[in-house]
């Protein structure tokens, strides 16, 4: 198979399929033949996209940090912006994650979305294309266009199919992320006035003085910290997660949050290495607050979705922690191997969290579809009536708590190991996640799954149907595979991480 225009295909096929799904329509009724055709069409399209993304795994050259599958065309000559796509070890796994999650999201909506199902499926397909675009873009303008355009379908997904307070949540989501991003836009334009192009790789090379670097770095932090999200700009996330439909929560947690992390490694660290170094303490502090404080906040939640949302923030704290340990390790050991460990760990954590949080939200979705409540208090003893579901949920919960053998363990362990090299106290605080994560996740599992059957609704529950069984199985396989055999993923990332480490180790002043 030719891989010449592979990335363009991965971006535009979902978008085109999304518009096609809109054209097919749902006939105003979920059960109509038309709606059925539209659903199958969308699912097949997303599976096809997943199949097309396989060359990113199979034909990926693991020996180089250079950009691969590059496409480069002039786009806006006035601004010297190009249609410039390419992937390396940092972005390819995230694209694979996106193409892997989207079919599951569509499957999860199969019978559940009753109103305007064509628009729902279309929104997710278009969103998929735009998200892949963010990960592929090597031109800052192209990156920004995808980055912002992505907000529109998500805005509609939460606002149309969300829960009670959906309008509040979706406007908050949009404005929060938009506010963060516009600062980044100013920085990107400033860098353009310096280099005369929007080429991100040129941005990596251009020397910038200390003041400008600090300002640019802070603007990047504004954009990415909101997206990750980091404490204290995380408050949109619990709202958005709670109100979003299941599919929206899954995509939000599994992929969208990763864009913040991706932004740090693609833009913030390489463009402003010196400012990143001098302000690393700040980011590490915020990450540790996310890990410890947000972990405690998660403990007291009574709403399952909110609990998982807070758990996401805590886990993403590990990602940012891993990125910014670099300077600490360099100072205390002078060993660049350990540095790479922190960043690799953070990247692995992103992929793993994508799978686990997606799975957790799907589990909550499965229960919500039956009982129409997200309240932990409304459940109890679910395992008695839904044994298969119970097994899956326990597996994902264990993984969320970082049990060895599951994917959740690998990333966290690498980051904790790296933080030991930097500073004992950082490591100590980071390691509390092993206790906190286990507490809030397992306590929730205990209250929801185990014990006596709590009420009639739980007693009347039906176990997983084939559709739900399928999507949870796929995720379970992913979580276990990554847990016992993370080597291919790590190998894929290694050259790019090493190149990044080498790049940010050198001053750009």
């Amino acid at each position, binding site marked *: 198979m030719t891989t010449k225009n592979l990335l363009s295909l991965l971006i535009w096929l979902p978008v085109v399929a999304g518009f096609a799904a*809109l054209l097919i329509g749902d006939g105003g009724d979920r059960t109509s033949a038309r709606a059925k055709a539209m659903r199958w069409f969308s699912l097949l399209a997303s599976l096809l996209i997943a199949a097309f993304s396989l060359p990113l795994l199979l034909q990926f050259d693991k020996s180089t940090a250079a950009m691969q599958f590059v496409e480069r065309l002039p*786009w*806006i*000559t*006035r*601004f010297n912006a190009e249609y410039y796509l390419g992937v390396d070890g940092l972005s390819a796994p995230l694209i694979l994650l996106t193409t892997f999650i989207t079919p599951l999201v569509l499957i999860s909506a199969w019978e559940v979305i009753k109103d305007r199902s064509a*628009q729902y499926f279309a929104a997710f397909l278009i969103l998929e294309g735009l998200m892949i675009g963010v990960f592929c873009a090597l031109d800052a*303008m192209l990156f*920004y*266009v995808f980055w*912002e*355009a992505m*907000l*529109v379908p998500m*805005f*509609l997904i939460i*606002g*149309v199919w969300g829960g009670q307070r*959906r*309008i509040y949540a*979706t*406007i908050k989501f*949009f*404005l929060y992320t*938009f*506010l963060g991003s*516009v*600062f980044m*836009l*100013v920085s990107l*334009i*400033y860098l*353009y*006035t310096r280099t005369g192009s929007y080429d991100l790789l040129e941005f990596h090379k251009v020397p910038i003085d200390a003041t400008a670097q600090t300002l640019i770095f802070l603007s990047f932090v504004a954009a990415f910290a909101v997206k990750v999200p980091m404490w204290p700009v995380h408050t949109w996330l619990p709202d958005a997660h709670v109100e979003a439909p299941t599919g929206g929560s899954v995509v939000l947690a599994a992929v969208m949050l990763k864009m913040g992390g991706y932004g740090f490694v693609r833009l913030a660290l390489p463009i402003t290495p010196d400012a990143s170094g001098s302000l690393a303490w700040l980011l590490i502090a915020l990450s540790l607050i996310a890990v410890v404080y947000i972990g405690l906040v998660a403990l007291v939640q009574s709403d399952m979705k909110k609990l998982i949302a807070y758990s996401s923030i805590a886990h993403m704290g590990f990602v940012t922690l891993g990125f910014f340990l670099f300077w600490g390790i360099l100072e205390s050991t002078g060993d660049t191997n350990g540095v790479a460990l922190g960043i690799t760990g953070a990247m692995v954590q992103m992929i793993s969290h994508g799978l686990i949080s997606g799975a957790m939200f799907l589990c909550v979705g499965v229960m919500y579809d039956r009982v129409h409540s997200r309240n932990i208090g409304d459940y109890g003893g679910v395992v008695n009536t839904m044994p298969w579901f119970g097994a899956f949920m326990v597996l994902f919960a264990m993984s969320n708590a970082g049990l060895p053998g599951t994917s959740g363990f690998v990333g966290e362990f690498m980051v904790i190991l790296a933080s030991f090299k930097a500073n004992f106290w950082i490591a100590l605080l980071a390691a509390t996640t092993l206790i906190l994560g286990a507490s809030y996740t397992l306590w929730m599992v205990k209250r929801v799954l185990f014990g006596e059957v709590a009420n009639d609704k739980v007693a009347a529950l039906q176990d997983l149907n084939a559709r739900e069984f399928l999507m949870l199985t796929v995720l379970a396989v992913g979580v276990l595979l990554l847990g016992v055999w993370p080597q291919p993923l790590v190998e894929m990332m290694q050259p790019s991480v090493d190149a990044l480490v080498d790049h940010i180790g050198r001053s750009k002043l």
Partner: protein
Amino acid sequence: MTFEIPNFGPAIPEMVLLGLISVVLIADLFVSDEKRIITFWLSMVSLAVVLVCTLYTAPGERIETFSGSYVSDMLATVLKVAATACLALVFVYSRDYLMKNNLRKGEFYLLSLFGLLGIFVMISANSLLTLYLGLETLSLSLYALVAFDRDSRICAEAAMKYFVLGAIASGAFLYGVSLVYGITGTINFVEMTAALQRVGSDDIALWFGLAFLIVGIAFKFGAVPFHMWLPDVYQGARTPVTLYLGSLSKIASFALAARILIDGLPLLHEQWHQMLAVLAILSLALGNVVAIAQTNIKRMLAYSTISHVGFILLGFFAGNNEGYQAALFYTLTYAFTAAGAFGVVALLSRAGFEAENLEDFAGLNARSPWFAAMMACFMLGMAGIPPWVGFWAKLHIIEAVLQASRTVGDAAPVFVGVAITMVLFSVVGAYYYLRVLKFMYFDDAKDNAPIEASVDMKLALSANGLAILALGIVPGGLLALCARVIG
């Protein structure tokens, strides 16, 4: 003394337009109200002819005529073509509305065409007096247009307000003209630049005159604090007239500012760029913040216009070619986006019912997914969300300001601060545009009346909406055109 026959070439579009207006005027006398559609088609044909004339007589280089008081250049061609196309859209969007609301008067088309003539004269003006002639032709047509539904009290009130304030602004502008003339001894823009080089720009009387010219420009644009008329007139006028004011009028205002500031007084940039900065920042702040509180969509769009004017003025503020190009790009794209947005308001209105409240947009997605999507295009275009074209317009302005910051030395932090102010207020602005989306997509319809419109209107509106999106995906051509016109 010999009498020289001037070169009429550069003014051919204007003369053709005037001739055609006379034809329409006379023809309209013999047409009964039921057959008013004839006037519409005659006007459309006139616009098509004018468009062809403008393109056909487009000069490759700058030509002056009428003793240097009239000019034809690429900028003029681009603006005239845009204004003509925009007016054609206005007519198409208005026809059904006028029919449905029993406003079958030929005057709407005639006054609009006279207004276009005024705009043409402003676009091609090369002296302060020609500019003023064009400005008054446009303004008088607009006053009459606003009062065009003569039985409506709200229209009359709006027209009165517009007229009184407009007259004061014209007076101020004329006062500024006389002061500048007094100092420089000329009203011709080219000679003015030469005269300023001679007498220097350190003359307080000159600055005084400049300030009055800026007042005129600011009033025409509706920049704070000269914006008071704008929300009331937008709301009070019938939707077709608001459509005219919201789109064409901006092209005229741009021409006014460009001719005075770029052609006439570039040497006073140091002085006017400070005045514009204040006007622009105030407009951004007030426009965006007050728009949030509006429940009437025409009024909301009026305040949104004020904020967009802030952006356009900041293009001039940058004072470099990038900035002027950006202001041109912004004006052109905004005019068509606004035309589309008001077009949707006209589309949803029925006999005796104005769809002017935000609630009237509730559930539009259920009533007509396609036109809800078009309205979403216009709103997101105005909000400056990529990939809609408004994003590039804003980006271009910010880029120009940051570009300028690299050449101004110590004042650089001010320019960077201005850029940050711009993006912050566009976030504030995003809120009220999103609120329209909220009504259309998240709320249930209160009103399930079918949307009736003629095919050409639906087609034009769809083309308009798709153009806003398509230009956002491939803005290169229009950007390059703007760069060629000014530069």
